[in-house]
């Protein structure tokens, strides 16, 4: 059945805004998914169709109409237990087989460490010395993710690859994939983790080999080479997850909007005020619980140890550039 499943899934993928099937695992999952769909449709039509036929054919025409004296039929009952049982075993076996393949990463996989925390993802390439907030990988090569959480259980889900694995705070979980299409695909958090669960989005960028080389050589795009400090800060603002909680258009999110803040005097929880200057911004990034503006919860995570000096400078330059109140 896998050839028809394969065909069907390609038809599905080609026909409009369906989910792309962008990895070897996605193809396997789609194939089994289609197999089950076809079988389900068949049995649904069989059961409901028979029900409708009987309902119409044996509707009561006269009161007191006679009915047949049937208690059961051993042969029928054995057959309709055996056939589903066999089909279910086949489905089980395929699911099990594919799952085990998905569980064992190839030896030559590119290794990436994934960290989940409320409410963003970050990625480290230990062998390349790169920290990034996007998962960037080359096409047609296996990638192994070793994942952990800084706080509660999250779940790393890439719909285009049909893959997810929970991300735990007390041990590592592992997932691997081999993307067979270039493009940018969504990463969702798939385990409820609080206020920002639905905005804990990420991106996985599958690049051609050449493009990937360029990205690696540029230090993972986190060095800000070739761009102004403000532009670098703007890039970091999105990639480091700041934009998840801080808008730049005045709208209130989990954290305050940062437009028109620099230079203001703000009231703090617990009394007192602070002037929003370079040092307050730096303190808010490194020790965010120290001085929290009234009207907000102290939920911002710290970036101490995560940002290099030039990255912190760029972020502060960007926030300053957001200027006066709208």
């Amino acid at each position, binding site marked *: 059945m896998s050839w028809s499943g394969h065909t069907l899934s390609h038809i599905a993928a080609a026909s409009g805004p369906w989910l792309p099937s962008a990895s070897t695992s996605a193809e396997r999952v789609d194939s089994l998914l289609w197999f089950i769909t076809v079988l389900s449709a068949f049995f649904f039509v069989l059961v409901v169709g028979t029900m409708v036929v009987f309902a119409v054919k044996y509707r009561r025409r006269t009161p007191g109409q006679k009915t047949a004296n049937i208690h059961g039929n051993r042969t029928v*009952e054995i057959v309709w237990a055996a056939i589903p049982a066999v089909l279910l075993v086949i489905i089980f076996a395929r699911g099990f087989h594919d*799952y085990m393949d998905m569980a064992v990463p190839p030896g030559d996989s590119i290794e990436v460490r994934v960290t989940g925390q409320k409410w963003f993802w970050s990625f480290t390439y230990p062998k390349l010395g790169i920290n990034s907030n996007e998962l960037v990988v080359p096409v047609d090569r296996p990638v192994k993710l070793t994942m952990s959480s800084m706080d509660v259980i999250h779940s790393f889900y890439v719909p285009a690859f049909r893959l997810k694995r929970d991300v735990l705070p007390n041990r590592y979980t592992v997932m691997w994939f081999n993307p067979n299409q270039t493009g940018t695909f969504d990463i969702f958090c798939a385990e409820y983790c609080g206020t920002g669960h639905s905005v804990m989005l990420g991106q996985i960028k599958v690049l051609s080999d050449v493009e990937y080389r360029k990205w690696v050589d540029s230090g993972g795009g986190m060095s800000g080479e070739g761009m102004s400090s403000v532009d670098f800060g703007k890039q970091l603002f999105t990639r480091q997850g700041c934009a998840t909680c801080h808008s730049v258009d005045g709208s209130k999110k989990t954290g305050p909007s940062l437009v028109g803040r620099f230079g203001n005097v703000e009231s703090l929880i617990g009394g007192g005020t602070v002037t929003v200057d370079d040092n307050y911004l730096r303190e808010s990034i490194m020790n965010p619980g120290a001085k929290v503006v009234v009207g907000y919860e102290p939920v911002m995570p710290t970036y101490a140890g995560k940002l290099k000096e030039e990255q912190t400078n760029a972020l502060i330059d960007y926030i300053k550039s957001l200027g006066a109140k709208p």
Partner: protein
Amino acid sequence: MSSIATDANAPLGEELAREAAHGSYLAEKGVLSWILTKDHKRIGVMYLGSILLFFMVGGLLALAVRLELLTAKGDLLSADAYNKAFTLHGAIMIFLFIIPSIPASIGNFFLPLMLGAKDVAFPKLNLASYHIYVVGAVILLYSIIAGTMDTGWTFYTPYSTQTGASVIAATFGVFVLGFSSIFTGLNFIVTVHKMRAPGLTWNRMPLFVWATYATAIIQVLATPVLAITLVLLIMERMLGIGIFDPARGGDPVLYQHFFWFYSHPAVYIMILPGFGIISELITVHARKNIFGYRAIALSSVAIAVIGFFVWGHHMFTSGQSQFAGVLFSFLTFAVAVPTAIKVFSWVATLYKGSISFNTPMIYALAFIVLFTIGGLTGVFLGAMSVDVHLHDTYFVVAHFHYVMMGGTVIAFLGGLHHWWPKMFGRMYSERWGKIAAALVFVGFNLTFFTQFLLGAQGMPRRYHEYLPRYALLHQLSTVGSQILGIGLFIVLIYLIHSLFKGQKAPANPWEAVSLEWQTASPPITHNFVVTPRVTSGPYDFPEIDSHTAKASEGG
């Protein structure tokens, strides 16, 4: 036809008039006569009122959640308000509505009647069960509404041990509610073993009784595990012991194992009574014996047993061992077989029957359609590799709503209509019954079928806002929820109306054979004037043509 061993010469009408003279169970007035009653029928009615009230509250919350999801942005509710709303929806629907639903209302009312008994084995325990339910409900509701419960009904750790929400109070409420369930289960098991009327052998019991019995076993065995799990959670929060919180040396996945060890069997508590009702509706309204009595009876027990060993299918992506996952997947498929047998048997029962399309039968047919979809989509989720994609997406949400709502709630509504004349002595409006059933069926499918597609496209669950590409399917789903809500609201209206203005019901409007119909509508307080003696089965309708060759006894 089961015969009531009394004055054999008096026509049935006179007997029933004498029964009515003994006093309908509804006759005695006064609030105290209700809240201190030991009559299983009154307790069943009190439960019925409570669960319908909570169903409405949970339903309004669902409408609010779906309304927010009409647009991709989180503009109606804040993220925190939304998280509270879906938590409250789930907790109310599961703990206050669906777990008690059929057993506590229809089960309480009809189990003794179907057995020819005067009451359940322990009437005072039955009353205690109801009061414990009320206390648990108050605690749970107060803690969620007044507090900031936003963990989802599943209370996963470490979020639930770290969040500043009123988790202790809410879980304590659920803990108390569990005892209501355990006591009901215990009562029913003893009643079925010890209080059957003379001649009512196990193989002559209505299938609703078999189903309720299997459910009761699960209630008694599984609920204590939830109780202990919640106690551990409370202890962790209050005493700082590290059981689940890794910061204190605990394991968060252990919580999931404990939680799902109860919560998977719990879904069989939800569906098995529904299966029992369908067996009753199809036989009575097609005037035919059930096809495969033994298979249906024993499959309930098989489902109850196997159901204890599949909990890990909620955890394929959790980090549990792959070996454990394989066992869970295999057993999950195993439990599908007795379930499929039931569906085939019900359809086969229609063969050469005499089918009346009244509201109970319409709900029974709707059940077969909707539960088949729900069950088949369970197959997708039981396949390990496919589940990796579909877990924690809207596909799961659609699946469980198809089986719980398209299954249990539809069966419950069918049973409510079927037994309404017996419980209250009034007929509901057949015309409105059919109109509402149609609205419910259409609204339900529009709401939830779209969600299978959403999930397959990767839309995760418990999301307050979403990417614009999912908007159309969400909007269709929200429109569906409005139609569904209207249909259910109509049911509420005409049922309440029938209590005051409905046509008076005869003792046996459907001319059924089982014992509950061989007494007045509504029944007298002591159920039967004289204990019935049973000489034949519960589905031996007079229309069955005894001249046709009985097909080989298959089950």
